[in-house]
């Protein structure tokens, strides 16, 4: 049975970028930064592609909110294999509630069976949009989706999806990373899933994929055309670096280390 899945592709600073607060302390220094698709979103795209492949086709629709720069991330998802893209054109500050609101409206229009989002974006690290979206849609939610098999396992190498859809397509079984272990959750469909690190290892965008992505459509909306109030309810008023931890000393041997731990740090 074909399946339709909505995924996201937030534009974030590359995780290897060195983030520096600007002189005014109200933002970060943008010069020299590289941008990527949010790694958790990329895991979501991968899982969606695997599910579609397993369930005899369907559609993976990727959405992103931001300036035209987000086309780069949408194209990346399209190059991985997503079917088409939706761009919600918005400049300026953006909070989780606006993003969740836009995604809610898109989902009401697109009517996918499932939405798979990153559990959080690696810029603001909020971890909220999936849950807001599930509540506002009245859908079930499975956050922190993971699997028992490791990323080195055969199941991973054969690109088996970790999310299990029942034969009647009414229930989704998700393994979640919870406090103290792994939980198996059964969700009624439709469902919002948010991805954790070890759900899968995303594929690379292949060169033929990149070439094909050039001709895949990107549909444009704005928060206003979707009927979403984009006034931020969360404002960052100040940014600063945490106090740096200073490098200590190198000790030559275990005996010296023991002495320091006992008599200087007094932790043993």
């Amino acid at each position, binding site marked *: 049975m074909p399946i339709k899945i909505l995924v996201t592709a937030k534009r974030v600073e590359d995780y290897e970028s060195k983030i520096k607060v600007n002189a005014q302390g109200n933002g970060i220094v943008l010069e020299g930064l590289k941008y990527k698709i949010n790694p958790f979103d990329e895991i979501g795209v991968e899982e969606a592609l695997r599910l579609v492949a397993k369930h005899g086709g369907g559609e993976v629709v990727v959405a992103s909110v931001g300036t035209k720069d987000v086309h*780069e991330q949408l*194209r990346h998802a399209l190059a991985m294999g997503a079917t088409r893209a939706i761009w919600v054109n918005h400049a300026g500050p953006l909070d989780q509630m606006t993003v969740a609101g836009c995604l809610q409206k898109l989902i009401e229009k697109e009517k996918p069976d499932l939405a798979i989002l990153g559990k959080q974006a690696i810029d603001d690290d909020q971890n909220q949009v999936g849950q807001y979206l599930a509540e506002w849609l009245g859908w079930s939610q499975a956050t922190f989706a993971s699997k028992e098999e490791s990323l080195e396992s055969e199941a991973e190498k054969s690109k088996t999806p970790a999310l299990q859809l029942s034969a009647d397509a009414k229930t989704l079984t998700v393994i979640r990373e919870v406090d103290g272990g792994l939980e198996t959750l059964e969700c009624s469909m439709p469902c919002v899933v948010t991805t954790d690190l070890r759900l899968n290892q995303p594929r*690379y*965008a292949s*060169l*033929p*994929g*990149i*070439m094909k992505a050039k001709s895949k459509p990107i549909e444009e909306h704005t928060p206003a055309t979707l009927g979403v109030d984009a006034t931020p309810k969360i404002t960052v008023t100040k940014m600063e670096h945490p106090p740096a931890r200073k490098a200590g000393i190198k000790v030559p041997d275990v005996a010296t280390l023991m002495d320091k731990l006992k008599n200087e740090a007094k932790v043993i």
Partner: protein
Amino acid sequence: MNFALTDDLKALQDTARKFAKEVMRPKAAHFDETEQFPREIIQQAWELGLMNMTIPQAHGGIELSHLAQAVIAEELAWGCSGMATSMIANDLALLPIVLSGTKEQKEKFLKPFTEKFLLASFGLTEPGAGSDVAGMRCTARREGDFYVLNGQKQWITNGEYADQYTIFCTTDSTKRHKGIMCLVVQGRPRGFTVGKHEHKMGQRASNTVTLTFEDVKVPVENRIGQEGEGFIVAMNTLDNSRPLTAMFAVGNARAAMEHAIDYSKQRQQFGKPIAEFQGVQFMIADMASEIHAARLLTYESAWRLDAGERNTLVSSYAKRFAADMAMKATTDAVQIFGGYGYSREYPVEKLMRDAKLIQIYEGTSQVQRLVIARELLKGS
């Protein structure tokens, strides 16, 4: 004029960079040490479309621009120039067919490479004919619908594993370059033997062997171009591939520079990081500016090909400058690492060994100078 990479080029670069970083580099030291053939990694590169980039779209390929190929070559060489040499060897071997093959030949000799993971080797050099291509001794004698091939080819990349060979030979060695012809040899016909893998100083992940032909029958329809056109086919191929080789030098040198910068910031001597010493700073500044210059020169040589211009002069500038630059940059990187740089525990000595080959293969730095001088001094 515009120096920025387009979004498309950036996307291609991204994939190549990620692959180089996550797949090639972690295994680079292992394959350098063991001299094994990194078949799985090369196959993965094929699956991502990082090989056979020149095959026309009409024959199932992706037909990347020369500029795009150059951008990708830098990243692959950054990951491991030995592996990169094995990957690009396919393009080098397929280029004569792309440039001079008939439609039927392209369908027969190129298309399978887009459908299945196959390797190809380019056979030009001989034990007695290196820079002096026209001195080749590998002969082809016509017998009905076949040529009968006799002779040896040396330093053949991927030769042990290749499924198809592009072999240059002569129908009449007295005619020097006017006697040369290009043949495609498929599989392992009778009389064809592959020698042992050469133990090399650098680029040890790439397979290098000698090929021997003893009365090997090759169908006449496997001839690319006409008899006597082989030299032109080979030179056109090298004009096309020279930017890629130059980019190998850029990628290799960039890797060395990045290691040198990281190390010089961490390594403390006389109570401060060695990066604070002017002697080290000057070496890094030289590396950075020369890498940048080599990259731009190479971009131009690729851009000229894309514009349909002859690029012999600029591509020789690029190959000569980039290869010599990489040798210097990697030697300086070893110097910055000091004793650690000389140790195999650290990555820079491999880069230095790898760089040396780039000054030698696909036209030595001296041959590039000859080409440059010839281009400049010819005519009135």
